[in-house]
């Protein structure tokens, strides 16, 4: 019961940026993220595809400039907005990836 509070287990192997978690699924297509060709898994959303690449934030708040990433995952918070195939203001959590999809992020 007391393990978490009294003995914090902070001994992380390393930061995730240096040592990304391997993707548990095999890629079957590729998408373009800001022009960069990255592997993707069909059936995932654009938001999940970016997350699997270790990208957790891809826009900044219009008021205070702070970096933001997906929060609600169901189309409500609008923190995951991307440009897809030239259409801006798209919710990445409600869009499915497909081979060759062009995704543009603000930051």
């Amino acid at each position, binding site marked *: 019961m007391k393990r*978490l*509070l009294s003995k914090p287990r*902070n001994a992380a192997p390393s930061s995730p940026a240096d040592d990304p978690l391997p993707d548990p699924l095999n890629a079957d297509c590729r998408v373009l993220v800001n022009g960069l060709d990255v592997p993707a898994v069909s059936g995932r959303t654009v938001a999940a595809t970016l997350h699997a690449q270790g990208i957790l934030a891809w826009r900044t708040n219009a008021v205070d400039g702070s970096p933001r990433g997906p929060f609600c995952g169901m189309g409500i918070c609008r923190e995951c907005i991307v440009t897809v195939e030239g259409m801006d203001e798209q919710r990445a959590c409600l869009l499915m990836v497909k081979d060759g999809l062009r995704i543009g992020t603000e930051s």
Partner: protein
Amino acid sequence: MSKQGRLTGDQTFDVAVVGGGPAGLSVARTVASHGFSVALVDENPHLGGQYFKQRTGAVLDQLGPHRPLGRQLIEDVQSAGVSCFTETVVWGIDESRALLTSHARSATAAMRITARAIVVATGAQERTMPVPGWHLPGVMSAGNALHLAAVNGVPPGRQVLIAGTGPFLLQVADEVARAGSQVMGVVEYNRPYTPSFASIKAVENPARIKEFLAYRLEMARRRIPLEQHTAVRSVVASGSRLAATLERLGSAEPRTEVTVDAVIFGWGFQPSIELVRLLGADLRRDSHDGMWIPAIDQNFATTTTGVYAVGEVAGVAGVHAALARGRIAGRAIVRALKSTRADVSDGDDARDRRLLARTERFATFVKNLYPFPTHELRDLPESTLVCRCEGVPASAVRCVDTWATTDPNAVKGETRAGMGPCQGRECAAVIQLILGNDASPPQTPRMPLRPIRTSTVAAMHSDLTEAP
């Protein structure tokens, strides 16, 4: 016969259902099976809503199906001839109460849907509890973590912390761990797992107890700590990771810091009532959790003629209640449209109402076991962001309080809280609680209910603006 509706011009149906989750699917299947034309509209790329969200593509191939009961229901709806409009946003109504919709990925595809009955099945969203740092990338809702893990096969982070209150946290811990994240702990605000007299009531729902025990067993097997009566007080960025500060409530124990890659918050659910409010339905407060819900009769008809509210919109009670409410409302609509009750089974109705009563009793029991800590909002540190979109801190919202108004729309105008792209969905309920205003519902929803393009509106009115 499966129909993917085409989004164009004006279309008329017997019944329009907004929301393709358990309740919407259930009502659509019932009504369509009696031969009526039904439009089912949902903004997601696939039907299923949040609970029955299906795996597709290579995720389905590699992980197998997720919640097959939902798959079956979706197939039933499609074979019943329901016109399904996915990626379709309902953003308003016109003066004749037609639904104004547009396609999520098109600048011009728009449609006006006229129907004899409108069923609002817009579900629920997660409740929020602001905490310093909740806007940081890597801090996410429990539902987001569940979708990432269970539907997309993406672990939310190498190491994650799950906090808030509710049985949902256990389910999220289970799915997130299965996807490959190490769950450093589940931090439950309340003390639901300390046996009490109240918990005896759970025996009425053995299936739920079985689910609970399965989650606990899996947590024990994976050595995931469960802390009760504990809260996450802040989250700060720590290099590329997040440091969460934990406090055991009512204890002198020093606070503990846990460093993780994702902090997952779940505080229960609240009905998504924007559309039903826009349709003019009277609201009332749910006597069990204080949430604002439409006033409905025993058939889920609202006070607006021809407008029904089913599923979580009618009060948060879970998937089994949503399915039963959909069937009950569906039969009522069939009776209303047919003006005869010849082939609608009263026996089915009685069975569903018994099931619903039992499920709703259990939902009440759960709400009592995991109360939302409203009092925490009064102690929120001054600089904590309340409105994420407009960057409005708790101090600004409280300031309005001292200026003598708790009117939700006045507060919105004064502080801009709720004026950003999410249109108050993440903060309006919280603001009401901070102000202690439980007499009026949160900020009035405004059209468009979702941000839309001016070109969409122009396309919708192109028939009125013919070139000279």
